[in-house]
């Protein structure tokens, strides 16, 4: 079936819109009585618009996009993991080590040979760290490399 992606998106948007609109109706009436425009008015309008948009997409979907399969999809997941792990390790390992690993891993996965990838990572990490911590006096975490 063509337009599969848009139909699913339309359905998802509708579910989102209904949930969003329903939550808005649960809020207690603000102190001092109801006005014409309460906290729920605007979200209710938005929910209605989005339901309409979702229905439209389900009825008239555009042709499907080319979705990555197999190896490309795997590469995408790997890159995302790198980003999440980077965010996780930024504070414990410190900026220089985690950045070397993250930038290196990303360039390597994008096609650079491993050595130049990690060298690029190291150089960019050191340059940015020195520039930020000494040049601009911002605080990037030093982590393991911290001098006590």
């Amino acid at each position, binding site marked *: 079936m063509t337009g599969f*992606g*848009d139909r699913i*998106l339309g359905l998802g*948007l509708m579910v989102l819109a209904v949930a*969003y609109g329903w*939550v*808005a109706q649960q*809020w207690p009436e*603000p*102190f001092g009585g109801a*006005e*014409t*425009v*309460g*906290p729920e*008015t*605007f*979200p209710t309008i*938005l929910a209605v*618009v*989005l339901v309409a*948009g*979702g229905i439209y*997409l389900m009825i*008239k979907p*555009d042709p499907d*996009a080319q*979705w*990555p399969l197999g190896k*490309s999809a795997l*590469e*995408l997941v790997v*890159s*995302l993991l790198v*980003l*999440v792990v*980077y*965010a*996780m390790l*930024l*504070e414990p390992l410190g900026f220089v080590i985690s950045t070397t690993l*993250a*930038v290196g891993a*990303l*360039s390597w*996965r*994008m*096609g*650079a040979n491993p050595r130049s*990838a990690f060298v*690029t*990572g190291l150089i*960019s*990490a050191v340059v*940015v760290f020195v520039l*930020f911590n000494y040049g*601009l006096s*911002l*605080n*990037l975490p030093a982590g393991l490399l911290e001098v006590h």
Partner: protein
Amino acid sequence: METLGFLMEGFAVALTPYNLMFALLGAFAGTLIGCMPGLGPANGVAILIPLAFTLGLPPETAMILLTSVYAGAMYGGRISSILLNIPGDEPAMMTCLDGYPMARKGRAADALAISAIASFSGGLIGTVGLIMLAPVLAKFALSFGPAEYFALFLLAFATLGGITGKNPMKTVIAATLGIMISTVGIDISTGTQRYTFGVLELYEGIDFILAIVGLFAISELLFFVESRMGHGREKVSVGKLTLSFRELVSTIPTQLRGGVLGFISGVLPGAGASLGSFISYTLEKQVLGKKGKFGEGDIRGVVAPEAGNNGASSGALVPMLTLGVPGSGTTAVLLAMLISLNITPGPLMFTQNADIVWGVIAALLIGNVLLLLLNIPLVGVFVRLLSVPPMYLLPIVTMVAFVGIYSISNSTFDLYFMVAFGIAGYFLRKLEIPVVPIILGLLLGPEMEKNLGHALVLSDGDWSILWASTLAKSFWLVAGLSLALPYLVGPLLRRRMNAAMKESPVSD
């Protein structure tokens, strides 16, 4: 003459060594951003926002930096159009048509030089237009009530897809999603907690800067990973400059026409820089008719679109500065900077923050001169940087985005949020839901709700106030038309633009 006085004060702001340094830095970085693949102007400015923010730059300096980047990106886009037949950014598409054939004939240096000059005059014409039009429009906008503003915001969303946009309904969906995200947090007027689910980090709402950086920078990285275009391009040589003075003079009428047309299409909602350069090119072809050799490396075919898109980029600042309603992705990002500097955009900015507005405008004039000076002698440097493969560039850009977001709040929570926005951005872009309306929704959502509330308080709950005045009515009408037009004339225009691309004999 009042304007001239303000402009002089603006120059006083922009010409301080400190601000001048940042203008130069911005112009240089902007040209780089424009010419590099995978780093469009909106993306580039978005990554620089958290940096400008954490550096603690004074508001006028931060704005001068980002406006220079914006102007620079418009210059940079042409370099890869001419040398590689690949536009560095979307508005530079039309420059490929005659720029690449010129380069093939060994006149790459001439094409680069003349297009820098055309960019300069386009930018200059656009900025002069901005200086004349903006104060008038700002004065007019002072008469807007909340109902007019509400209608104006709708108009901004409706026209964002542009008349060449594919599916206006997707623009509407994107804008709604953006506004929905902006409702998260404590409601300003009643104090009700909305969609916070008890998560402390959500009480103040979702910071649009991290949403912007995630939606642009992270999703761009994912696109590159998917397309495996990491390896970049071969080196290109530029050759010697053989441009004669007579040839330069002969393009002056083209430069003027291109600049003016570009400015007009920049100001108009929904037209933008891409259409600006398209119109200037087409008109030039029609005016010169058989006398020109368009598509085969006619020098005026390079001048017209470049003057057009730089005129348009200044023109696009008019609605952003005077009404607080940006008409393009990059100006939306600039608006984000203004809002995070606690400056309320709109007509009042011209009286309350005159130093910033006029400082930015003066910086635009100075920036154009700097860009011309940078672009002619330094073109070799930019060309060399063009061959830096994205497989090194994009990871570093991503890292800079991480640094910027991290240093705003020193918390990794924001980083996860940014990555999540990146994933969402990737899926939405895959499904052809445009990202820019989401950002505009995030930025304008709170204002929209506030104006809706005010309008209904004024009318005592009568909803018809939203379309009571003639002005509001006409906004609604234009908004409706811009959603309907893509269905009617969109396919035709798109076909023409594509046909123009194909006509070029060397579009390989």
